[in-house]
């Protein structure tokens, strides 16, 4: 629906621009972009479920964690090659997430948010106490096989993954299915009244979101080469994902990418002055002001700017 040649041209230009970056930016910046890419993947995953359907998840690291721990355990404890462990991790995230969280999709609003938050907390506790010989307990695991070495290769890998996920999600959202998913977030009753199965649509949104979270989580641990439960199931991590999607522009594909890059660089540039968790106060303030000024996010502000320029040129 509404696919035009210039959409594909813009995607191609975006990808080309990204892949040229190693030629023009320093290695340190590339490392920051790698983290922005992964945050963008997680924010897209969150947005596919929460931004579109309005079912706000506060426990997305639960899904990311299933993917990350599955591949970490398989490679570290059972010597399964990464090429096999990552697809298995994605599958496990989709199936495990469905079993645990799908019943929660029957409840709405703050109750759904609380259930997802509880699931994240539950997983945090479980990985520490159940079979620490497998999960690494409170310390997690290190020495996991890495997919790439060096900032440039890491950048190419994370960028290719982020762009592939973003483009696929964008295409999905351009279909009638994508329109119906967005419709749920705006008016679930009207979707049902139009004869669509809301349950089936929510299942699709959840599965797509879990696929992205599982894939992102699995590749992330094989970029880092380690996994630590305290970092993965940190409430600040949840908020960073949500804020990235919201200030970038929830319910869009480019919005979460913009938000992820904005937040990652903001946090990085604040580091010299505020090395501790105080940075999150600053970004919380920035996010609040941005969100109050324009709830549709940075993507909408950019759209407005483009429209103004076009108007001025005409």
């Amino acid at each position, binding site marked *: 629906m509404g696919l035009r040649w210039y959409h594909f041209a813009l995607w191609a230009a975006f990808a080309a621009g990204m892949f040229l970056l190693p030629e023009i930016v320093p290695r340190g910046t590339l490392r920051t972009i790698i983290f922005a890419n992964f945050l963008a993947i997680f924010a897209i995953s969150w947005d596919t479920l929460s931004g579109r359907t309005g079912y706000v998840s506060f426990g997305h690291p639960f899904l990311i964690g299933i993917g990350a721990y599955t591949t970490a355990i398989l490679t570290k404890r059972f010597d399964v090659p990464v090429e096999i462990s990552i697809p298995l991790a994605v599958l496990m995230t989709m199936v495990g997430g469905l079993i645990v969280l799908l019943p929660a999709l029957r409840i709405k609003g703050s109750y759904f948010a609380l259930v997802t938050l509880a699931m994240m907390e539950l997983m945090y506790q479980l990985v520490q106490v159940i079979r620490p010989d497998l999960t690494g307990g409170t310390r997690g695991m290190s020495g996991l096989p890495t997919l790439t070495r060096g900032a440039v290769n890491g950048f190419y890998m994370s960028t290719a993954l982020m762009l592939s996920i973003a483009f696929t999600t964008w295409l999905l959202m351009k279909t009638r299915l994508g329109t119906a998913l967005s*419709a749920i977030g705006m008016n679930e009753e009207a979707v049902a009244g*139009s*004869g669509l199965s809301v349950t089936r649509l929510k299942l699709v949104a959840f599965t797509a979101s879990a696929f992205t979270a599982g894939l992102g989580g699995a590749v992330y641990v094989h970029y880092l080469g380690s996994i630590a439960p305290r970092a993965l199931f940190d409430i600040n991590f949840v908020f960073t994902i949500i804020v990235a999607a919201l200030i970038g522009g929830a319910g869009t594909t480019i919005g979460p990418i913009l938000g992820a890059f904005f937040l990652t660089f903001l946090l990085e540039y604040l580091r010299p002055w505020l090395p501790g968790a105080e940075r999150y106060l600053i970004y919380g303030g920035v996010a609040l002001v941005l969100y109050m000024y324009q709830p549709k996010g940075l993507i909408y502000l950019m759209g407005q700017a483009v429209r103004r320029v076009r108007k001025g040129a005409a």
Partner: protein
Amino acid sequence: MALLEIDQLSAFYGKAQALYDVSLQVEEGSIIGVIGANGAGKSTLLDSVMGLTKTQGDIRLESASISGCKPGEIVRRGVGYAPERFNLFPYMSVRDNLLVGAYTARDDIARNLDMIHTLFPRLEEREGQETSTQSGGERQMVSLGRALMTSPRLLLVDEPTIGLAPKVCLEIADVLRRLQAEFGLTVVITEQNANFALTLAEQVHVLETGRIVASGTPAELTDDPRLAEAYFGH
């Protein structure tokens, strides 16, 4: 031949009962009005036909029971629904709102869009506009259009004139008549605006606190004291 038969229908919201043993028939190709004051159960009646509420009793479409069917199945069998106060997707364009309705009738999209653009040329002109920025009349057109995208034979319209200017009400009435005359649709409308329903419908049922208290042609009901009682309580 009756396209829709409602037999001894009761509807519930949790423990609260909203309809009591409602029975009525809708003949194919007719326009039927259900009128009543706020809280009479008009929207509940249409929601019940669509499978959106918990019900007892039987609802039959072309003699086949649709009681207990899911809304998707009921839409596929040929019932379209334009709910009260438009119930649109506010941040979507007119076109996307219509296409959500097309989800169950994928083969007829082009034909249905043509029909909607013939009935509402304004929607074609503004197909890219977000519905949150439209007037009440335009939103009602989108709501009717979305219901028509499901390729219905029976169209249920809940309070089509609520909050609309008299001129727009006339336009809506004209469209509903054209749907009946030119496209062969059967139409059921609910209305608080008794004059609108009595002008448009061939048969009218008066609903009061969940029960049908009077039925008849507009001519029969115009001077019926039960109509005034249903609205004014005396």
